[in-house]
């Protein structure tokens, strides 16, 4: 980003579901992205997955109309050296996130803002272990990021105004509205939603209703947009379990202990839409 060209330069760490979703949002808003992924197979098929997401964005009528920006994929954190904002979207594991963000901190300018897309880990907990804790804040993008216009923004107790302003400019460029909330396990959305999904899965586990019936009741009677278990498939059941563990460890709330059915699905590789099967089966999305 320069005075002549105010478009922020963005780097995204991790080409999983969220990394691809955020990258899609940025590219179609004219924000160039360096997408860093260490797994060669994931890195190789990331452009094709982004193409599919761009098609979905067009189908749903949410393309911004701006010229599409350039995508560069890279294998190393060194590839994001020139970024104004770096968003990490890697596995929901505090140690892995700290290691990645520490490496980024040693690579980028001191003006570069660091963003964690964690759904559950408190920002201050991560920031305390970083060389520049003031550079970090949390932006919880939802999936698909290009369909959901609001994001949850978490400013840690040590986050600088400069980092917050930089991320604010990025969100403006991405056409997203940030809702600022206080730091803490799960912030607002995961604290409320993930526990509820765990309860919904427990109802299925106990044999009291099918996944379809749980979702139908939650949709038709209570106005939930997709139903909790279809949402679980969209989040990724493995990611959901990781998040529930973070919540359970940090709050002691037994309602957040991942239920048996969720654990069985993770062990069986039934991770939701991305694996073709979760609470539902998905034949078309992988082809």
């Amino acid at each position, binding site marked *: 980003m320069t005075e002549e060209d105010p478009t922020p330069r963005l780097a995204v760490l991790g080409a999983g579901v969220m990394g691809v979703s955020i990258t899609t949002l940025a590219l179609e808003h004219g924000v160039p992205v360096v997408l860093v992924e260490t797994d060669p197979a994931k890195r190789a098929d990331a452009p094709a997955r982004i193409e*599919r997401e761009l*098609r*979905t964005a*067009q*189908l*749903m*009528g949410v393309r911004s109309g701006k010229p599409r920006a350039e995508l560069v994929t890279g294998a190393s954190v060194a590839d994001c050296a020139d970024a104004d904002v770096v968003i990490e979207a890697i596995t929901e594991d505090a140690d892995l996130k700290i290691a990645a963000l520490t490496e980024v901190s040693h690579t980028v300018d001191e003006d570069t803002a660091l963003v964690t897309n964690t759904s559950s880990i408190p920002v201050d907990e991560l920031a305390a272990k970083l060389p520049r804790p003031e550079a970090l804040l949390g932006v919880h993008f939802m999936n*698909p990021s290009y*369909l959901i216009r609001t994001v949850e923004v978490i400013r840690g107790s040590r986050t600088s105004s400069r980092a917050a302003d930089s991320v604010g400019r990025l969100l403006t460029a991405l056409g997203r509205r940030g809702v600022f909330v206080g730091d803490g396990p799960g912030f607002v959305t995961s604290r409320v939603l993930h526990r509820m999904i765990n309860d919904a899965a427990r109802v299925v586990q106990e044999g009291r209703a099918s996944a*379809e019936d749980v979702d139908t009741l939650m*949709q*038709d009677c209570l106005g939930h947009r*997709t139903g909790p278990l*279809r949402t679980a498939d*969209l989040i990724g059941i493995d990611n959901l379990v990781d998040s529930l563990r973070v919540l359970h460890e940090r709050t002691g709330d037994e309602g957040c202990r991942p239920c048996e059915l969720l654990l069985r699905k993770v062990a069986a590789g039934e991770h939701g*839409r991305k694996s073709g099967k979760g609470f539902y089966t*998905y*034949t*078309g*999305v992988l*082809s």
Partner: protein
Amino acid sequence: MSEPTTTPPLSAEHVRTELRRFLEERTKTDWAADTDLFATGGVSSLFAMELVVHVEKTFGIAVEGPDLRIDNFRTVNAMTDLVLRLAEAGSGE
């Protein structure tokens, strides 16, 4: 001795039947051909891309450019019109 075979043109009835079969299999609902799949809440908008991929693979068409919009997938009839139009355009090339 076998007769030479040619691919018969797609009929609206065939396309409609196939689409309704697919929708019933995936959503456990028998959809009327003119019912808005998305307005009733019975079909998630996230299912829409699956529908696109299914239509492309099943009928050998490519849905691109301005055709790639949700209104073309809102009802079985709308999808049928799209498939017939793209199949006819493809066979004329």
